């Protein structure tokens, strides 16, 4: 029953996004802007191999941006349209519905990666240099899983109060910064790297760039294991926090006023 509810939530969410101009902005315009800036900066000066950070990084930024914004914005939209109370009140757990929404967002967010790679090829005549195909594919799939876990962990805070979205929206660039979406985390200060290490996408993105020949090491197995372990922890935290938020909302009856 939960699977069916999640699938229906994903289906409805996808249909809503087809007619939502903001979704096109996130999957096309935003990755184009980020990839474009990255390519202009990284293309000259003999940094040929670094182009990957723009060509792939711009797309990953778009992918996460779409999934993360949708996770939060869709809950805020439910609030604005007066359907959040019904979602909390229905027998299906809120986490199941949000799971469907986030999964759907990640699915259509993949368009951002394609847009980014197309821009790199069409405008800058750059191709992604995949050195190790298998690690690349595994790393990419794990990146999607890690982003899913991160979005699910952040999603429960959105129903708490209207203003939460404002704060968490400001954290979007922080994730790009900490996880090394467009440059290696190795150039960040040590204490920042310690925080980066707690985020699952940091490890999968590192392995993704390693598979394209970037000099960040080749310790794939360890990186993947850490990413999987962290993702599972994030998902477990997410389930607990979702439950707390649901119980609290039902007890206080002040969801619309939060």
């Amino acid at each position, binding site marked *: 029953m939960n699977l069916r509810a999640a699938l229906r939530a994903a289906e409805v969410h996808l249909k809503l996004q087809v007619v939502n101009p903001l979704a096109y902005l996130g999957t096309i315009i935003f990755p184009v802007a980020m990839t*474009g*800036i990255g390519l202009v900066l990284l293309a000259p000066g003999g940094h040929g191999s670094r182009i990957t950070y723009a060509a792939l990084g711009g797309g990953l930024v778009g992918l996460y941006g779409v999934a993360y914004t949708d996770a939060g914005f869709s809950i805020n939209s439910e609030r604005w349209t007066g359907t959040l109370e019904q979602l909390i009140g229905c027998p299906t757990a809120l986490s199941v519905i949000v799971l469907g929404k986030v999964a759907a967002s990640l699915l259509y967010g993949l368009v951002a990666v394609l847009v980014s790679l197309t821009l790199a090829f069409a405008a800058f005549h750059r191709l992604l240099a995949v050195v190790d195909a298998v690690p690349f594919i595994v790393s990419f799939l794990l990146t999607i899983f890690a982003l899913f876990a991160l979005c699910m962990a952040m999603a429960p805070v959105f129903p708490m109060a209207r203003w939460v979205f404002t704060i968490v929206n400001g954290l979007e660039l922080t994730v790009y910064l900490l996880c090394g979406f467009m440059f290696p985390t190795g*150039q960040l200060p040590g204490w920042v790297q310690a925080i980066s290490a707690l985020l699952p996408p940091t490890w999968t993105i590192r392995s993704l760039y390693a598979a394209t020949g970037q000099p960040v090491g080749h310790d794939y197995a360890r990186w993947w294991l850490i990413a999987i372990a962290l993702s599972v922890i994030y998902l477990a935290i997410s389930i607990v926090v979702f439950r707390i938020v649901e119980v609290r909302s039902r007890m206080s009856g002040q969801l619309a006023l939060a």
Partner: protein
Amino acid sequence: MMHLRLFLHGCLLQYRALFNWASPLGYATYKVLVPVTQVIFFTQLGIFATGRGNSIYFAVGNALQLTAINGLYGVVMTVGNERRYGTLPFLLASPANRLVTFLGRALFHILDGVSSVLISFVIAAVLFGLNFAHSNLLLLAGCILLISATTSGLGLMFGSLSLIMRDVLTIANFGFYLVMVFCGIDFAVNRLPAWGQAISFALPMTRGVQAAREAVNGAGLHDVAGLLLGEVVVGAVYVVLGYALFRWLENRARLGGMQEAY
């Protein structure tokens, strides 16, 4: 005097209404968090691409670009939300002076935009060693105020468009990415192709950012007068275009009773 007081009070209310749902903590966090993350992210990207020696270039550019958060998001939403929350018919039916009402939507956002730049400069000074010892501070302050005002001019024009387009956020986001890519924030405008440079010089902020960079390096007013004049002209063009569009749409809506029909 009373008119001025009413005007300022109206401007303040419009500004506060935009953040009516935010707690003081939420507003303060957003006010600090966004500048910090934007400046650090793009400066780190710049360091990765060009080396640590160029970090100031990226920090200054991105600090100045933050005026677009107020000038575009803030102003566009202040205008566009009238329709979203059903107050547009009341506004259009009121006898208030249209030009004052229109320009009043930008006033506090211009000042707030300046404060974002100042916060970012502090961050850039602490983290990347931005040094104002040789800067022309008065000129720099003028440049920041001008950039904030001209970007709000673009915001007013996009805001008018939001009267006939449903999705206010899409318009604001599009404008934000436009200035981020084309206005010489992370790389010099001459790195863009010819068509990109044409867009660049048709946008506010391009000349202002260039002038502000020179002011940081100690240039005098006579060195950047041409750039500043160009920035004023571009900003004024957008305000006039936006106001003309606002009035045209208002008249059209009045004739057909279609204030909220788009």
